């Protein structure tokens, strides 16, 4: 069983809001789509407008999806009744969908048991978001779409969302995650896509090991490394090159085939390729934690284990940025850092 979008796009007036998209998401898969807010909204509107269904653009298991009533949609702009309690809210959703379920189990899973009789308006922002996640466990459907589910969430709520995703994956159905953060997409998705004006491109994740081997072949031996007289990393701005001391850099990311240096919560585009940077920065304590990321290990404060397949690194900087850590790199990093 799979969800299929065929050539769906959105044009208003002369402006193409969303290029034509061909997407297939298999059952039990989580497709994470990284996009800016405009493309995210345009993508979501495909599922919210009747004409997408009338034109048979959205198919599940070979059959046309009848309408948005057949899907679960989570969006940060959805709210709850502030004068009700989480317990009453969950029961209300259950009654509306005419499903029997264990309220306590859902509240435990979303870590809301301690506030079950507290009015929703008195809950924290994170608790309110977790309550919204509970909705996905009540509405039994085949297609789940989450828009920015972990945006501005605390660690506990992110973990709760992971558990919720695991529960959804146990049932049959497909999950689409729309996120502005590629890191979150990589962490949560089994397949990751980028959506922009050029359309939808898959971010390759499974080639990590092959890539790693290629990179290893190209890395010179230790002696050669130390023979290099390398001190600065260059980044190009409008009319000048900025030269950074390697240890100033928090992490480096490849984004749309460009190398982005993250320095003090600012981004700078470098003309040097990721492979070259990895070679140059290895002696400075940089580590290729993911195919698209090179992190300064001096900056790493936390290694977060979301599940046995999902890891992240939290950096010790002002915004506590999070960088994905590949499953295959976890053991290697553990040995390297000796923790």
């Amino acid at each position, binding site marked *: 069983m799979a969800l299929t979008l065929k050539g769906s796009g959105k044009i208003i007036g002369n402006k193409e809001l969303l290029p034509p998209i061909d997407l297939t998401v298999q059952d039990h898969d989580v497709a994470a789509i990284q996009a800016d807010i405009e493309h995210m909204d345009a993508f979501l509107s495909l599922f919210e407008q009747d004409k997408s269904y009338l034109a048979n653009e959205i198919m599940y298991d070979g059959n046309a999806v009848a309408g948005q009533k057949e899907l679960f*949609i989570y969006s940060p702009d*959805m*709210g*709850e009744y*502030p*004068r009700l309690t989480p317990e*009453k809210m969950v029961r209300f959703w259950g009654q*509306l969908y005419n499903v029997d379920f264990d309220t306590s189990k859902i509240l435990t899973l979303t870590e809301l048991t301690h506030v079950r009789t507290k009015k929703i308006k008195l809950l924290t922002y994170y608790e309110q978001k977790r309550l919204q996640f509970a909705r996905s466990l009540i*509405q039994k459907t085949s297609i789940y779409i989450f828009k920015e589910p972990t945006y501005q969430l605390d660690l506990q709520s992110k973990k709760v969302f992971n558990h919720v995703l695991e529960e959804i994956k146990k049932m049959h159905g497909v999950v689409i995650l729309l996120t502005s953060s590629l890191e979150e997409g990589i962490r949560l998705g089994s397949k990751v896509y980028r959506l922009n004006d050029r359309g939808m491109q898959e971010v390759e994740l499974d080639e990590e090991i092959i890539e790693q081997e290629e990179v290893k072949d190209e890395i010179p031996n230790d002696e050669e490394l130390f023979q290099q007289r390398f001190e600065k990393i260059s980044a190009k701005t409008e009319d000048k090159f900025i030269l950074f001391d390697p240890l100033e850099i928090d992490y480096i990311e490849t984004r749309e085939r460009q190398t982005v240096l993250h320095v003090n919560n600012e981004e700078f585009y470098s003309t040097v390729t990721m492979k070259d940077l990895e070679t140059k920065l290895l002696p400075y304590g940089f580590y290729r934690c993911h195919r698209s990321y090179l992190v300064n290990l001096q900056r790493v404060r936390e290694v977060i284990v979301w599940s046995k397949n999902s890891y992240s690194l939290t950096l010790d900087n002002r915004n506590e940025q999070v960088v994905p850590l590949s499953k295959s790199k976890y053991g290697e990093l553990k040995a390297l850092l000796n923790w």
Partner: protein
Amino acid sequence: MDVRRIRILIQREFQDIIWNGQVMIVLFSALLMVGTVYILNQFGFNVDEYEIVFFNAIPSVLGFVSAFVVMYIQGNILVEEREHRTLKVLQLYKVSRAELFLAKSAITLFIAMGLLLVAMIVFRYEFLHVVGGLLFSLPMLFMFLFLGTLLAEYSKNTIEVSLYGWPIIIVYFMLEGIVNSNLNVNLIKVFPNFHVTQGFDYILRGEWATASLYIIIPILWAVLFYLLLKKKWNASDQQNM
């Protein structure tokens, strides 16, 4: 239309409304108003040869309950779905606009009828007059129910409902003042206030046939606001296409 869903929506609204401060203030004001009308009903004053009376027993209570309670509560509880961003969730739960409107209207009408009943008991109405009075009140209640729904359609939040609602209440009570005084203004016959006052007079006298004639104009007003509401709903539907 799913009756089970409407029942669930009504249950939820009842759980919610008892903690709704705005609605509780409106209810308290309405009960206070019943007592105030009862007292002020006995007083009036004269300007030259004209007698000015502001409140006239049940017709004035009905005016207050319709304009203040029905319009406000209906407007508020409907717009809260948008304000609290729960409308989108309900739509995903297959709740249609008609189901939501019926659930909210049931709550609003229940409160309004309850208040009218209390007022009629205070004014020592007989059982038959209570039944007749409640039936006669329905077009007025529906008129303001549609008006409240229309307000909610045009408003983003409860503040806007209050903002747009006040001019309507002021105009209604100005008309009420004219009806209750012996000023000779023929134009007043176009508005429902005059007909409500006349109708209740005939109900109390037991002249049911004559009283029923005065229900026509309030029904026409209710139909007018229903058509305006329908027009707004159609426009919204076309916008969402």
